[in-house]
């Protein structure tokens, strides 16, 4: 365990450097959430006229939703780096070295966390430019980022764990795609909870994606219910730790198949 912290540092540095060396990837990563906010903001502009929406501006409502969807669509692909490493022989070299398995997982999580926060800042800035208002202020925005990072941790661990088991990019793409869209729509990311069918309301209350959206929106509101926020943050933390633990165990499954 004494190697966990230094190894995490070195391995995170490696991943961040690799990201920065692909400018096209960085640009796409930054533009994609902007497009969502602009596109969905226009497409569903009048949705707030439906009963169930407390707010009068869809951009206010949508901004945290897009932040959270961006988390899913970014960290769902975390495992691709693992598959790349497997294909290149980097994974085998790491596993035959004293590299801490926990650090290999944590480095991927931290890389995702940095990405997700940068994307979150972009979305918030674009939202503000489109006239969104966040009465919760800076504190609210920071809580949204914290919730997003916890969700990113859970999702990237899930993606990495799947990568270690399926071992091909095709299978991982399938898995990630199958999961991200339904989980987004089974939450209040785009539509107010009260405006959704009852069964979706029920399902979404067990959906960590929805916890992230609710915690974020609550913290950004004028008078946050901090108890509700904390409860969901705690739930997200537990989910992140459990998926992290299970995903780290998946290294063994990978080695069994060698």
């Amino acid at each position, binding site marked *: 365990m004494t190697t966990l912290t230094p190894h995490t540092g070195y391995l995170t540095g*490696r991943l961040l450097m*690799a990201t920065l*060396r692909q400018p096209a990837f960085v640009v796409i990563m930054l533009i994609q959430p902007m497009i969502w906010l602009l596109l969905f903001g226009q497409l569903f502009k009048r949705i707030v006229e439906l009963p169930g929406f407390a707010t009068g501006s869809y951009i206010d409502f949508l901004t945290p939703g897009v932040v959270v969807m961006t988390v899913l669509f970014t960290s769902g692909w975390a495992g691709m780096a693992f598959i790349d490493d497997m294909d290149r*022989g980097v994974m*085998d070299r790491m596993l*035959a*070295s*004293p590299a801490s398995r926990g650090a290999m997982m944590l480095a991927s999580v931290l890389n995702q966390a940095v990405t997700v926060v940068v994307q979150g800042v972009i979305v918030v800035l674009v939202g503000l430019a489109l006239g969104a208002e966040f009465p919760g202020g800076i504190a609210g925005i920071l809580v949204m980022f914290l919730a997003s990072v916890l969700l990113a941790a859970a999702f990237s661990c899930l993606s990495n764990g799947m990568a270690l088991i399926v071992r091909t990019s095709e299978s991982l793409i399938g898995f990630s795609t199958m999961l991200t869209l339904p989980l987004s729509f089974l939450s209040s990311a785009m539509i107010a909870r009260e405006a959704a069918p009852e069964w979706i309301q029920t399902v979404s209350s067990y959906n960590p994606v929805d916890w992230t959206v609710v915690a974020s929106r609550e913290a950004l509101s004028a008078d946050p219910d901090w108890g509700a926020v904390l409860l969901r943050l705690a739930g997200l933390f537990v989910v992140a730790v459990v998926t992290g633990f299970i995903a780290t165990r998946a290294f063994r499954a990978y080695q069994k198949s*060698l």
Partner: protein
Amino acid sequence: MTHVRGTAIEAVALVKRYGEVTALDGLSFTVPAGTVFGLLGPNGAGKSTTIKILTTLSTPTSGAATVAGIDVLAHPNAVRRAIGVVTQGSGTDRQATGRENLLLAAHIHGMRGRAATARVDELLELFDLTGAAKRLVKAYSGGMQRKLDVAMGLVHRPSVLFLDEPTTGLDPQARSEMWAEIARLATQERLTILLTTHYLEEADHLADHLVIVDRGRLVAQGSPEELKSELRGDAVVVELAPDASVDSARTAVEAMAREVTVTGRTIRARVDNGASAVPAVLAELERAAVAVAAVTVARPALDDVYLRHTGRTFAAASASASGSGSEEVAVA
């Protein structure tokens, strides 16, 4: 190195099954410390599987192994600190520079600060990569990447180095450079090196001792010289002309030589003295009215050792295994 004693690697009755497929079928061997040990066999023979078990990547279905005196099953982490591993293919990060790759390897092995950078600079110098140190690995040639691979395996001064197919995919120039590098490491760095190869000449050239593996079993072991001297005499290879009768040629050669095998239009046989036997063999073939395209005489080579122990030529075994190689499935 006479002052290096003891056993560096011991494999005892290693068995590895993947479902129905048996990749290793009771393989045992011992590698003396400070030697270059070759694991020779065609693709799919079980070489990579053996390396994976010895480097703690994989666990055997049954059997035991120690590396640097440490039990690989009981103390995998201690083994990982003692060994350097150069995997098949590559193990370098293409999006990083050569220097960054080496520094990361040093850091993972617990080296810090100036000790790490000094070692990295030393290795860059040693492998003639100083000029390319700040370039991304994806811009390296195949030979440079392979040198970087080996350098990464040496960062923490391991006592045992595993090289899995170190020259596969290299052009002849890069291959001979790599051979020189491996030979130098063995003599100057007092390393124990276990290398796998499916190139007979590579094993012959580099290994002090070698085992020949076929279908997960050991078929022969010894020094290349010992293995070759087991074969008495020289090999005579007769290539028949397109219209010659293989059967009458075989009968004719059998009258003059022993251990006759036929592959297609090629007849291999063994004689005590090649130089004096060739005229007699040719005379016999002429008497049988067999047209000959070419005759060659060769001192015993490992190819002959392989042929004798497995009943097929090395090239034929490699070709038949490449389509269904059990161990190569996992390597992809």
